[in-house]
Every structure is written in structure tokens, then in C-alpha cells.
């Protein structure tokens, strides 16, 4: 965690630097007796720098151990990356083919990822769930679901 805290605080200081750059580009449209649109961002970035510096110094000099999850394993990291990319493609596919056509495929792959191996269960869940969601959201509650541009 000590190493992680050092990296995180350094990243936060870098982010703070970028935020300062963005603050500098804000338009100067101050009305009389107002503090301007950059006031709050400036105040916050000062707090961010201060707290990040304390985290950095604390990690660098403090020898006490924290009891947290040691981090992310390679397998889990790969899983998160795959899931992120997969959700991106799901959303892209949904914008083309719509919710009803893409969701069964998406659900089936996710169930395989989580360790499902019973084909009947995978097919049943991945077909029935989107239909239930469609009926519940679109038909009963009139909540619009993503419709494909191709259909």
C-alpha cells in the first residue's frame, strides 16, 4: 500500500497540475463583488495539492502498515480490462442493433466469464432476462430502451 500511495499521490499532484492549467484558461467574466468562476476550482486544487502532499509524505516516511487489499492481481486486471472493452462493444452494438438483439449475446458471454457451464441455464437466462427487462421497463414503466439505428 505504501508504494501504491506514493504512486497515487504523485498522480493526483499531476492531475492537480493539469487542473491548474485548465483553470488558467477559464474566461475572466467577473461581476462586481463576486469571486469569479475560478474561485472554487482554485480553492479545491489547493486542497488537492495539500492532501496529496500529506499522503505522499505519509507514505514516504511512515513505517506503519495499513491493512488493505494488496492490490489487483494480473488475472483480475485482465478481467477488468476485458470487461471494459466488452461493455464498450456492447454499447456500440446496441446503438446499431438495439437492446433486444444484443443483450442475449452479452449476457451469455458474461455468464461464461463468471463460470457458468450449463448451456441450458445460459440460454434460458440470456433470452428470458432481456425480454423481462423489455416488458418491465418499456411496456409497463414506459422507460425508453436503446433502439438500434439499423432497425
Amino acid at each position, binding site marked *: 500500500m505504501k508504494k501504491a500511495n506514493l504512486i497515487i499521490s504523485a498522480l493526483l499532484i499531476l492531475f492537480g497540475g493539469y487542473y491548474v492549467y485548465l483553470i488558467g484558461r477559464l474566461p475572466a467574466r467577473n461581476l462586481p463583488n463576486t469571486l469569479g*468562476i475560478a474561485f472554487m476550482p482554485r480553492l479545491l486544487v489547493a486542497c488537492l495539492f495539500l492532501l496529496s502532499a500529506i499522503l505522499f509524505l505519509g507514505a514516504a516516511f511512515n513505517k506503519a502498515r495499513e491493512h488493505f487489499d494488496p492490490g489487483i492481481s494480473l488475472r483480475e486486471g485482465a478481467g477488468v480490462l476485458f470487461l*471494459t472493452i466488452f461493455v464498450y462493444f456492447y454499447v456500440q452494438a446496441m446503438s446499431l442493433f438495439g437492446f433486444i438483439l444484443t443483450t442475449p449475446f*452479452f449476457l451469455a458471454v458474461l455468464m461464461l*466469464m463468471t463460470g457458468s457451464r450449463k448451456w441450458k*441455464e445460459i440460454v434460458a437466462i440470456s433470452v428470458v432476462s432481456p425480454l423481462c427487462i423489455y416488458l418491465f421497463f418499456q411496456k409497463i414503466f414506459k*422507460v425508453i430502451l*436503446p433502439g438500434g439505428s439499423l432497425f
Partner: protein
Amino acid sequence: MDGNVIAALFDVLRPQNIFASMVGVFFGLFIGSTPGLTISLGMVLLLPITFKLSAVTSVCLLLGLYASGMTGGSISAILLNIPGTPSASATAIDGHEMARRGRAGEALGTAVSASFFGGIFGLTCLVVAAPIIAKVALNFGAPELFAIVLLGLTLICSFGQESVLKGLLSGVIGLIIMTVGLDPMMGTPRFTFNLVELQAGISFLPAMIGLFAIPQILVGIAGRAQVIPGYKDKISGVLPKIRDLFKLLRSMLIGSLLGTGVGAIPGAGGPIAVFLSYDYARKTSKKASNFGKGEPEGVAAPEASNNAVAGGALIPMLTLGIPGDPVTAILLGALLIHGLIPGPLLFQQSPQFVYSVFWAYLLANLFNLGLTFSTIKLWVRVLKVPERILLPIILVLCVVGTFALRNTFFDTAVMFCFGLLGYFMKKYGFPVVPMLLAIILGPNLEEHLRMSLIISQGDFTIFVTHPISLAFIVISVVSFAAPLLKPLWKKKQPV
């Protein structure tokens, strides 16, 4: 009696509202009894549905979930020794021990009855205290309102966290995120990168779903879902005898009092209240030596406490607009979606709605009692539903829910970005609740701060010359300085 009270009662008793309350309770029992699914997650999953419902129906639905989710959490705690919600952790100590000794029915019956007692106690405190606090808060000006929001944020950042510093960083990053969008005073775009979608700022609904639901899904799917063993034994004798309940009255009162008190402190939350209640009930009990070995008092105190927390947490949320816990933060978001701004003005501008909240919470507690007793065997079966089925469906619901907000995938992308952020925060010990609270309360904080400084013509002493504002600021400073100074103070103590 105030005409609004009766009007609110009739409003809540409309068929659609009764149905919504029942659905909320049913869904809450499902969420609460399923290990790994939290009440916050249940709330964010139901939020998209509330867009099309009236404000009162939405409140009936969400309060039903809130009340029953707490009770549902005790089912898996008692039967499997796996608390369905963090607030059910203390229930597992004696509840599971009772189940192991063949008294699962008695333990479940005690838990449900104590939950009802705690829920009604919390509601009574809410009904009595809320109008008084709101009346006092009506006299607050911009400096006091700024100080209250600041207090709420610092309490959330500092309470119950492993690292206060990380809690504060999480809050500050949340406040930085909320600076995106139109400036609240002059309407000038800030950090929008010429994107029309960012003009209105970062919507808190995708942020909520992302921060609460996605990290759980990522851990479950990418890290492989855990396999939870089902409960195999038969359950009988769930309905408790009135005589037995009277014997538990003292522990239920302790739990309810502590639960309501702790719940009303923003950020303190259920887990602190239940362990305090359990500990106090044990220390003051004649059967103290039986605690940990299957003592019903050890189930009654924390269960009454975790349901009383809900009533307590609603007090600052309704009267000051400061949520007491993550669930009330989401509830606050739901009210904002309907154009209702919780705070003292809500009591003046929409008194009927406030009374509807009280009635809705009473209805939720009644349904919680009735439905839990009548369907308890169903929830025992729910414990067998594996995460490999639930998590993919929840992910689809998250995507659908965020899309439904403005019918754009931009919000889905925002939700997933927050999800990834929440996942990394969770992995590296950063609490997500301060960030969410900062996103919700940030605009208010900035508005009141800048308004105060306009009034004082840039003089910062306005916050210390107003006594109430000064008091809140002092409590804020103490609340986050105390945990930082505690280790130093301990070092100076003689060994």
C-alpha cells in the same frame, strides 16, 4: 389535525403507491438477503424506474426497499453467517449461533420483530424531530447553510474510515468533478471541453450507479464470483410469542435509541450503530455471559438498531438536505430528480409531500413485517441464487438505467468511468461515499460560499461572526482533526 396530514395519508393509500411500497419491500428483501448485493445497489437499480413515477410513488418504492433491505440482510447473517448488508454484521454473532443450535426460526422471528420495533421507533423520532429542526433551520442564511453542508461533508469523510486523509481526498476529487458544467452564479461554462452533454455538469445518477454498482460487478465478474453455500435445514417456529418479545423489550429499546441517534449523525451509519447497540445491550444484560452463544437479546438489539438507523438518517436528509448515509444520499438524488429539494424550505413549500414521506415509511415498515413473516421460506431459497446469474443481469440493468436518464449513451460512458474509478478507489482504500456526497452537495456548497462572500464583500470572517456557522465549522474541524490526532494522543498515554 393539519389538513396536509390527512391529504398525505390518502395520497399514500392510493393503489399505485401501496403497490409500489409492496414491490419496494419485496425487492429490498431480495437485495438484503442476497449476500454481495447492497441496499445502495438496489436503490440505484430502481432509480431509473422512478423517472416515470410520481414523487410520492417513488418514495413509497424506495422507502420500502430501504426498510426491508435492512431486515433482509439479517436472513443470510443468521442462516449462513454471511451478513447480507454491513449493518447485519452484529446480528450474525448470536443469530447464526442460534441457527446452528436448531433455533433458526426463533432467530429470524426475533430479527423481523425487532426490525419492526426499530423501524417504528425511528419513524416516531423522525416525525417528532424533523419539523422542529426544519423550523430552526428556516432562519439560517447563506453562511450557516455553507457551514452545514461543510459539516455534512467532513463528517462523511471522517467517520468510520480507515484513513481520514483518503476520505478527504475522495471528497475533494468529488468537489472538483462537480465544478464541471455551468458556473452556478453566472452561468459561464467551466471545464466542458465544448461538449454539450457536459454543460449541465456531471449528472449524479450515472455517478451513483457507477460508484456503487460497477465496482461490485467488476470484482464479481473479473475476479470470479464467490460461491456461497445454500442453507439446507428446515425452518419452523418463526412467529415469536408476545411473551418472548416483552422479554426483549429492553434490548430493542437500547438498539432503537442508539440506532436513531447514530443514524442522525451524517456518515456514522449502520455498522457503527449495530455494534454499539450489541455491545451496550451485552454490558447491561443479566444474561451477558450468554452473548455470543445464541442469545436472542444479541439479535434483537442490533436488528432494532439497524432499522432505527433508517429513521435517524432521514432526519438530516429531510430537514437540512444532508444525507445521513449512502442510501439517503441516493434517496436525496431521487427527490432532486423530481424537482424536490430537501431542506427546511421543503417543509414550508411542500408540507404534504413531507407527511407523505412519513406515511410511506410507516407503510413500508408494516409491509416489511407482514411480507417478511409470510415469505421467509422464499428468501431462504433466494440464498441459493448464484452470483454468476445475478451480476450479468445487474450490469445490463445499470447500462439500461443510465441510458434511460437522457436517452444517450454518454451517460452510460460516464457511469462506466465512475465504475472504474470506484473499483480502483475500493482496491486502494479510498471510500466512495465522500465522493458521491461531494458531487451531490458540491453545487450547494459553492453557491452558499460565494453568496456569503458576496454578502460580506469578500470578508471571510462572516463564517466566524455568525454563531451557528461558527459552531458548525468548529465541529467540522474537530470531526476530521480528531481521528488524525488520536494516534498522537494514544502514544502519550502511559503503558
